[in-house]
């Protein structure tokens, strides 16, 4: 270190330096979440399975030569074969197509019910939490009352009025499930609204609607999404349950619930008729739950640096 060339002793000007440098790559919150969930093998498996089921439900029935309602009385209760992958049911209908058709119904019920719950629950909970005080007290008592009525009672009453069918199930699910979402969102917003960035937005003159939509809800989005992914399988299961006890989808439409219900009678002779819709239900529910759990871990602020 004795021979340091003189030009190295030259002072450098301020312009040559970057004193506000930020070295790390810019990453949004959701990019960060996505990065973390990608590391979680089982959550990704769940995600892939959900995607496959979704894809099959959409295009699957078109690719098959059979349809879910066409009866072939000469081919009743066939075992699985090349012709009929999952076999046929007591009316000779192809089970593979019927299971995929059931997937359509289940996913549709799950998604529509959750979407409605999302919109209603988030707005209701958001308003209740943001305004607080007496508005909050009244809104939450309403929620308490709704949540005391059992879902099945609702469903049965709706069936009586509207007749059994997809619509009644969705309405029944929608009118009850948003309550939980509203409670969760309200809790989050109650703690967020005392944060300084909310005060900052207020002092800039932001309207309550803007504060809710631009500041509060985006910050509760993580919890909301986890709640949604865990709500979908529940809605699917409820639909299956209602169809199983005969309150849901009616023939010839297929639902995993009604299919298992149909298969119970011939369980000894044709166990596969129960197995396929049952397995589809299990796999779907498991995938959503595993993915939801992984999402929760990825969103956990304690793990965030």
């Amino acid at each position, binding site marked *: 270190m004795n021979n340091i060339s003189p030009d190295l002793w030259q002072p450098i000007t301020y312009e040559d330096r970057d004193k*506000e440098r*930020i070295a*790390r790559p*810019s*990453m*949004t*919150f959701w990019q960060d979440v996505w990065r973390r969930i990608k590391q979680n093998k089982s959550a990704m498996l769940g995600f892939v399975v959900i995607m496959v089921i979704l894809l099959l439900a959409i295009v699957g029935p078109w690719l098959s030569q059979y349809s879910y309602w066409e009866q072939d009385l000469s081919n009743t209760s066939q075992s699985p074969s090349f012709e009929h992958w999952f076999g046929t049911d007591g009316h000779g209908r192809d089970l593979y197509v019927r299971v995929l058709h059931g997937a359509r119904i289940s996913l549709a019920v799950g998604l529509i019910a959750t979407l409605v719950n999302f919109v209603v629950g988030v707005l209701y909970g958001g308003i209740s939490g943001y305004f607080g005080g007496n508005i909050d007290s009244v809104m939450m008592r309403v929620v308490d009352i709704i949540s005391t009525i059992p879902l099945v009672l609702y469903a049965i009453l709706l069936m009586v009025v509207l007749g059994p069918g997809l619509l009644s199930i969705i309405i029944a699910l929608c009118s009850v499930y948003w309550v939980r979402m509203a409670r969760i969102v309200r809790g989050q917003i109650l703690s967020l609204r005392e*944060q*300084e*960035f909310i*005060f*900052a*937005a*207020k*002092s*800039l*003159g*932001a*309207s309550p609607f*803007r504060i809710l939509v*631009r*500041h509060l809800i*985006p*910050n509760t*989005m993580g919890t909301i999404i986890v709640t949604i992914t865990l709500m979908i399988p529940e809605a699917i299961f409820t639909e299956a349950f209602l169809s199983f006890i005969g309150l849901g989808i009616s023939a010839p439409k297929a639902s995993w619930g009604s299919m298992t219900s149909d298969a119970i009678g011939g369980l000894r002779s044709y166990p596969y008729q129960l197995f396929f819709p049952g397995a589809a239900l299990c796999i779907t529910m498991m995938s959503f739950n595993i993915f939801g759990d992984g999402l929760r871990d990825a969103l956990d602020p304690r793990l965030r640096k």
Partner: protein
Amino acid sequence: MGPNKEPLLEVKNLRKYFPIKDGLAIKSYIKAVDGVSFTINQGETMGLVGESGCGKSTMARTIMRLYKPTDGEICFHGNNLATLKGSQLLPYRKRIQMIFQDPYASLNGRMTVGDIVGEALDIHKLASGKARISMIHELLHKVGLEPDHAIRYPHEFSGGQRQRIGIARALAVSPDFIICDEPISALDVSIQAQIVNMLKDLQSELGLTYLFIAHDLTMVRHISDKIGVMYLGKLVEIADSKTLYKSPRHPYTQALLSAMPIPDPRLASKSRRILIEGDMPSPIDPPLGCRFSTRCQYVHSQCVQEEPKMREISSGHHVACHT
């Protein structure tokens, strides 16, 4: 430019009580701010010092009208803000702004820095499109940040940088008056000086008036023309900053001054500290008489019975103490 003597903000007997509810009935009140009066002149900086729990942040938020005052007046340019509601306040949101304490909690983590700084422009419809972007860049430049920082998210910045983003946000509406609610308390000492200097430079550049809140007296004197000391919801002493540091009259101010760390080992080993014992009493049930009487070393019988009035002992120097 020297401060001209026109009052910009006059706070008169301001009170803010928070009810403590027991079911539906109101059980008692937290008297966070309990009768505070002061005046800030145009172009001036008033420092406000007090320990945590003395009500200084509540006062800042009440003046900002984030809280509704229980009683009293907030006169800004002669208009009383205390009684205004909702959208009536909107024009004043452009004239009074606020800088917050916690550089982490005061920025919305889901918005880019550009959107945070530009939010005021959107709300008040001050600029859009290209003009908006160039205004954001200009604001960032004002606080020493680069234009390409606008697309980044708050968590990528250091505490000092975040605080500067907060300053840029407040400047977006070109306000006359900025309430700085402990803007430096959460920062490293070396960065505190940076922020204080920046606020001072902006003041002389833009002719701003500040209410600068801090929890100790160390930095306040470098920015304030006059300083108020607050204890348990009340002002106990107001004086111009030189007088306050040279001849503090209230025992609490004296204790605060002597508790300041002395960055000089030779002086530190020689100096005697006035240590005040114990903690601040609860604002739900403040002591009768002088609020500082429970910790004051000069306490006598009058202090316990009678609340001292604010009185002027020399020009501009007000103290609320019996002794």
